[in-house]
């Protein structure tokens, strides 16, 4: 009996016993790892599934590349994933278009500040069309500035009364006389964004809606470290929301601060969601990505006008093709008093303010 016990002890002290222990340990580790691998996605995906009916789609999205660099097949898959997810999430058939910009077009915009009445209908139309977060946070791509009328520091009547006058050698601008001793322009001092008037327009003020200037030389595009934001061949600056890393460099680079960052999870009620979307335009965005005015890419790429322009009750907004001399924008540039920002930083905005 004692001999047997001693033998057993001896056996357990032998290298075989050690090997057994190591094997057991490895077995335990493998079992635990396998269990964790099986369980972890379920745990991690549990909350995602509460918001997102198909968590796998989200995982696939993490691994997709820049939309512009995808093959046609990859684009199709990506669009199908988004349509499936949005349709389930918002409980309505949602389409995500990837229609390309038309050829032979350079989009430009003009806004008549003498006509704008500050009603903010353009703001609300933009929010509705572009699926912006409704509250907490509220995201708006257009801000309407209210400014005292005294800020216009030039007289249209005096504009051509300066010296030297126009000659066959050209118009050298106002130098003496006319508006020479005043700032020939419009001061934005005392501008206020959060006005809450009972009735508009206030007769002592004028209104200036501000939005992305769609620069021809956009500094935001240069600043983006991953090329998530880019300029399409129709001159519109767009963002691949899935490629954006949320570093906000573009926001810092924009001299007009026209970009909006999704600080929180966007709050878009299903009943208010616009189901006709574009990949680079109004499809629902996620937290942590940048967004901005796209000239309603989902509309303009199909030959329609931007929502803000359609909503304007006084026709203060003009949109068109800068390559076409007969377009509204070109006509405005040819015939109206057009302003430019004093400090443009060489960005060449394609959004013009004018007085009709």
């Amino acid at each position: 009996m004692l001999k047997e016990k001693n033998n057993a002890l001896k056996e357990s002290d032998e290298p075989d016993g050690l090997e057994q222990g190591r094997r057991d340990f490895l077995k335990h580790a493998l079992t635990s790892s396998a269990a964790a691998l099986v369980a972890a996605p379920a745990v991690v995906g549990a909350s995602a599934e509460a918001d997102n009916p198909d968590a796998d789609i989200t995982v696939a999205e993490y691994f997709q590349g820049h939309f512009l660099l995808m093959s046609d097949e990859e684009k199709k898959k990506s669009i199908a994933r988004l349509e499936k997810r949005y349709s389930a999430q918002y409980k309505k058939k949602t389409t995500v278009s990837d229609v390309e910009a038309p050829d032979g077009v350079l989009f430009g915009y003009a806004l008549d500040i003498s006509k704008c009445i500050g009603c903010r209908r353009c703001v609300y139309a933009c929010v509705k069309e572009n699926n912006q977060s409704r509250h907490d946070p509220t995201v708006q791509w257009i801000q309407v500035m209210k400014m005292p009328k005294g800020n216009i520091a030039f007289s249209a009547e005096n504009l051509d009364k300066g010296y030297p006058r126009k000659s066959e050698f050209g118009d050298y601008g106002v130098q003496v006389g006319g508006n020479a001793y005043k700032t020939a322009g419009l001061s934005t001092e005392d501008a206020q964004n959060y006005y809450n008037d009972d009735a508009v327009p206030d007769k002592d003020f004028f209104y200036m809606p501000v939005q992305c200037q769609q620069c021809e030389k956009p500094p935001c595009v240069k600043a983006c470290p991953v090329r998530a934001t880019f300029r399409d061949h129709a001159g519109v600056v767009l963002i691949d929301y899935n490629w954006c890393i949320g570093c906000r460099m573009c926001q810092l680079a924009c001299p007009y601060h026209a970009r909006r960052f999704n600080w929180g999870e966007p709050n878009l009620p299903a009943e208010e969601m616009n189901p006709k979307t574009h990949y680079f335009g109004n499809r629902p965005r996620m937290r942590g990505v940048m967004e901005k005015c796209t000239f309603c890419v989902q509309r303009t790429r199909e030959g329609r006008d931007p929502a803000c322009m359609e909503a304007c009750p006084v026709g203060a907004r003009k949109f068109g093709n800068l390559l076409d001399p007969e377009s509204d924008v070109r006509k405005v540039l040819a015939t109206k008093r057009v302003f430019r920002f004093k400090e443009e930083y060489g960005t060449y905005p394609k959004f013009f303010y004018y007085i009709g």
Partner: protein
Amino acid sequence: MKEENSRRSFFKRVAAAVGMVAAAAGTKTLISRSIDSNDGASEKYAADVAAQEKAVKANQLVVMTDEEKQQRIDDLLNFHRQEIA
């Protein structure tokens, strides 16, 4: 003796697996607590809007002369042609 051992090792495995899952869940909760929180989002958004207002106030609109307008159109069209080319 062997039976007891195998039962013990089974319970050990179960305990280890449960421990791993609990750890994963705990880590996920910790991470998502900070990610899912919308705290201060409205204030941050308002700060972005205020920055835009400040940028507009600091700037000024000046009237373009006819030459300037023509120059602008020419520049825009040239840049566009270069981009397309």
